[in-house]
Structures are given as structure tokens and as C-alpha cells.
């Protein structure tokens, strides 16, 4: 595997006295599936928020493809090629599944304000193409039958898949998945693993926050473990599992 697509260097983020992320450094190789695990409150989602521009780090650099994107607006980061999903799902609930996916592809369309206003042939062509791309994605995510339903009316698993489809519609080089297996049953987890593999095989680097160790171990080439905003271990699945600090963070100290 080649150069790192995402390199986090000494990033810190404090909320009041709490250091949610503390001088964190990690590097994700292009083409990898990279796992981030850790107990609740370890700073995993905060890290995603920093990378996707929800909040800006107090210090440190976030290099995406060699460019420091720390402090950029979310939309600029999305256009640069980072897509994400949210732990607590942020779908456009009162829009159809298809519209959700089409909005995800917003940055890939070129229609200007005047194209939109005048519905120029160029805009019409582009809309048709966007529509068929959206329908393809929905079909790939087993959501074709739900295309016209409000996103909020889909079953939970469908909403999870729809959020990934929406993120992929932006054709990101880097996809951040925040607990995609949450609430999934065994069969859904199985399907999710296949889906993430397929996305990765198609050339998208994936960073995954996940509590389900089965999913993490199966998917991830490399895993970082966070605890109290600090990286306490990094390595492949076997290394991480054998690491005493990881065991301590998850299970407590033996004499506690």
C-alpha cells in the first residue's frame, strides 16, 4: 500500500477541562480499512468530527492527501473527498431515500445557479445522470424498493445503509463510518462486512469506528485503540488483542 491518505499529527481538542482528543497522531494508508476502537467517551466520534470539519482542533494538523484540512468547513472537506456517516444517523428524514442519495452527490454535479434557474439542457442531462446513479446506488444497497419512501420511514437497518449510500454518492476517496453495525443483527452484520469490503475494493479508503469486535477484526487491516482521547495501541487485529493496555482499558485492571 502506498502513501497515507489521512495523516493526523498531534491533534488535540478540549471541551472545557476535558481533553476529548489529546495530542493524537495516526496515519491511514491509501486503500486500507482502518479501525478505531475504544470505550465510550474515548474521543472516537470527536476525532471524526475534527476530520470532517464539524469542529476545529485546538492544535495539530489533519493532512488529507498531503493538504492540511484542519479547520476547513465541512462542505469544503466533503468536496475534497471525505465522506462520512453519523453515529446517530443524520438522514434528511422528510425527503425520499432517492433524494437523500441525490443530495449526497451534490458536489459531483456542476449545474450553476443559472442552470438551475433556467433548467438548461446541460442541467437536464446532468439531472438524468444523477438520477440513474442514485438508483444504481440504491439498488446496490438493497434499497431500490424504498426509493420513494421518506428516509425516516425506512427500517433502522435500511436507514443505516442509506446513510452509507448517501456518503458514497459523493464519490469520496476516504469514507468515515461511525458505528455502522450498531443495532444490526447477525445477518445484517454479515451483509455490512461484505458491503464495506466491496466499497473498499472499489478504491475507497475506509476508517471505521465500531464496537462490534467481530466486525472490526474481520474487516480492518489496522486498528487504533483510543482511551480518554489518547491512542493507547495500534497494530493489526492480533497485536491489538494481545496488548495489555487494551485489555486493561476494556476490562479494567486485574486487581481493580
Amino acid at each position: 500500500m502506498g502513501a497515507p491518505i489521512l495523516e493526523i499529527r498531534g491533534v488535540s481538542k478540549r471541551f472545557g477541562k476535558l481533553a476529548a482528543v489529546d495530542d493524537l497522531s495516526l496515519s491511514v494508508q491509501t486503500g486500507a480499512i482502518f479501525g478505531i476502537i475504544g470505550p465510550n467517551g474515548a474521543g472516537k466520534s470527536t476525532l471524526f468530527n475534527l476530520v470532517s470539519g464539524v469542529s476545529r482542533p485546538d492544535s495539530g494538523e489533519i493532512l488529507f492527501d498531503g493538504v492540511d484540512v484542519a479547520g476547513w468547513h465541512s462542505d469544503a472537506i466533503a468536496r475534497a473527498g471525505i465522506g462520512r456517516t453519523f453515529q446517530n444517523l443524520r438522514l434528511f428524514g422528510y425527503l425520499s431515500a432517492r433524494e437523500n442519495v441525490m443530495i449526497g452527490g451534490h458536489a459531483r454535479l456542476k449545474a450553476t445557479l443559472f442552470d438551475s434557474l433556467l433548467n438548461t439542457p446541460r442541467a437536464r442531462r446532468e439531472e438524468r445522470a444523477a438520477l440513474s446513479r442514485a438508483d444504481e446506488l440504491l439498488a446496490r444497497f438493497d434499497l431500490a424498493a424504498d426509493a420513494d419512501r421518506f428516509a425516516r420511514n425506512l427500517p433502522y437497518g435500511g436507514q443505516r445503509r442509506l446513510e452509507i449510500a448517501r456518503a458514497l454518492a459523493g464519490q469520496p476517496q476516504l469514507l468515515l463510518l461511525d458505528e455502522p453495525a450498531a443495532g444490526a443483527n447477525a445477518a445484517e452484520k454479515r451483509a455490512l462486512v461484505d458491503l464495506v469490503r466491496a466499497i473498499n475494493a472499489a478504491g475507497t479508503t475506509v476508517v471505521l469506528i465500531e464496537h462490534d469486535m467481530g466486525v472490526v477484526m474481520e474487516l480492518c487491516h489496522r486498528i487504533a485503540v483510543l482511551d480518554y482521547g489518547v491512542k493507547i495501541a495500534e497494530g493489526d487485529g492480533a497485536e491489538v488483542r494481545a496488548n495489555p493496555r487494551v485489555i486493561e482499558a476494556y476490562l479494567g485492571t486485574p486487581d481493580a
Partner: protein
Amino acid sequence: MVYAIAAIVIAFAVAIDRVRTKRTKLLLLAGLAVLLAVAPRLGGSDASVNALVDIGIYVVLALGLNVVVGFAGLLDLGYAAFFAIGAYTYAMLASPQFGLHLPFWVLLFLAAALASLFGIVLGAPTLRLRGDYLAIVTLGFGEIVPQVFQNLTKYTGGPNGIGALDVPTFFGIPFGQSALPYYYVTLAAIALTLLLTNNLRASRLGRAWMAIREDQLAAAHAGIDTTRSKLAAFALGASFSGFAGVIFAAKLSLVSPDLFQFQVSVLVVSMLVLGGMGNIPGVVVGAVLLGLLNGTVLPQLDTIATDVLHVHADLTQASFLIYGVILVGLMLFRPEGLLPDRERRAEMHAAPNEVV
């Protein structure tokens, strides 16, 4: 005649809203256009044509504001300010005021451009605000603009405004005193506004607005520049208002600051609420109903009170009471408006504690 035409427009709007296929919609729309084009020929006084033009101007205003409030979800309570800017653009550039006599047709589009520029001026610093805060700032803007026109006496004629505006000409033929030419201009303006706002609704930009309305953070993560998209909504919405302002000023041949008070903004917002925000046929229905109430029904109530009931009550004083009753009733029984779009209908009828 005013009532008959209003009823026809509402019936067609409801039908257009109900039918599914685009072809049927277009056929209905074409039928309505033909009906409206021949309607004044079938009789009816100049006063009733005049009343229809006023309603028509409200339709343009409501469709324009719908871009801002309905599509992008930005509550703008100062929309009359852009209407005033359009009207004063015509008044200052086509009257003896400065001895400038630019053509009506040029000024229509110049005023639209100017109004959208002011939309950007207002929007740029304020669109970071959300919901109520934005509403308050736009409300302030709506108050300031007429004040500025009132106090820049040297340029705007102060409280008396500017009169004797140029009578527009159409290929050299002056419009004259009849309201009929304005009727056709307004009809064309409505057609243009319908076309453009309908294009917007189904466009890349329209989708971006829907996304922002639903969840701004998620919209930004889809790569939507939320500030720019909102500015576009403000600028485009304002341009329709400026456009309508020129027609309004030319027909009246007079502008003065009191024509653009807060009530105008409130009336247009009420049209959206009544008709069904975001849904174009609904907005037309709301605008026609309230335009009719405002321009025709309420003034006649006065005559009814004096002539029939022999009481001297100034019922125009009660107009706010009547609006209030209508809106409260609407909120109680049909909060999504008379003809809502799919989203609002579902939104208003979702159980408050429903798990998402």
C-alpha cells in the same frame, strides 16, 4: 368577475396539484392561461381588472418569497423591503424626479437585479443566524428600508413619495389609463415566475435547499456550501419581489413609503402559510385567497356594513383581526396549509414523540 376568476384559478391550482402526470399538469396550466388571457374581454369593469392585477402581483410576491421560506426554510419577515426597492427603482429612474426616463422593460430586470443585490447585502452578514434570529433581522430590514425612503427626502420625495411616474409603452404604444395592459404584463410575470421557481424546485440548488432545511450539518457534509446556497435563495427571492415592485409602481404611477409597511410582508408570509409552504400550486391558492380578501372582500365589507346594516364601522380596522382568526383557525385545523407538499403534510402529522 374578480370572484369568478379567483375561483377558476383556485380550481385549476387544486387540479394541477392533484393530477399526477406532468403532461396533464401542463395541459391544465395551458388551459388556465388561455382562460385568463381572454377573461377581461368577456366583460368586467376596469376596476375589477385592476383588482386582479393587484392579486396577480401578490401571486408573484408569494411565489418569490416561497423560494426563501418554502424551499430554503429561511423565515424572511422583511420581504416588502425588496418590493419597495423595485418600486422605487422604477420611480427614480422613470419619472420627472431626476428627469430620467428609462424604459419600463429594462427597469423590470434592472430592479430585479438591484433587489437581488440588496438580498445579498442583507443576507451576507445575517445568514449565519437561524430561525427566530434571522426572522428578527429581516423584520428590522423590512422596517429600515421604508424609513430610508421616507427620510432621503431629497431623492425619494420623503413621506409624499414620487408621483407622475412614466406610463410604460409597448413597442411605442403607451399603456394608457386602463388596467388591461398591466393585467397582461402581470400574467406574463406570473408565468415567468412559475417557470423559474418550478425549475428551481427540481434542480440541484433546490435539492440543496431542501437538505439545508432538513439538516444543515448533514447538508454541509454532502458538500453543500450552506451559506452560498442560502444567499442564492435570498437573492433569487428578492429579485422576484423587485420585479413585482416595478409593475406595482408603474400601474399606480406613484410610490410612497407607506405602501411597503410591515403588513405587506406579513400578508405575503400569511399567503404561504395559508396555501401550503413550498408547494407552488398551494402558494398560488394562498396568494389568490388572501389577495382577494385584502383587496376586494375587506373594502366591500365596509360598504356592506354602512349600506346594508346601517352601521358605521370601519372594518378595514378589523382586517388584522380577520387575518388573525383565519391563521389561528388554520393552525388548529390544518397547520400544513390548504394545499401542502408531501413533506409538510407528513411533518405536521407525525406524532410529536414518534421515534425517528
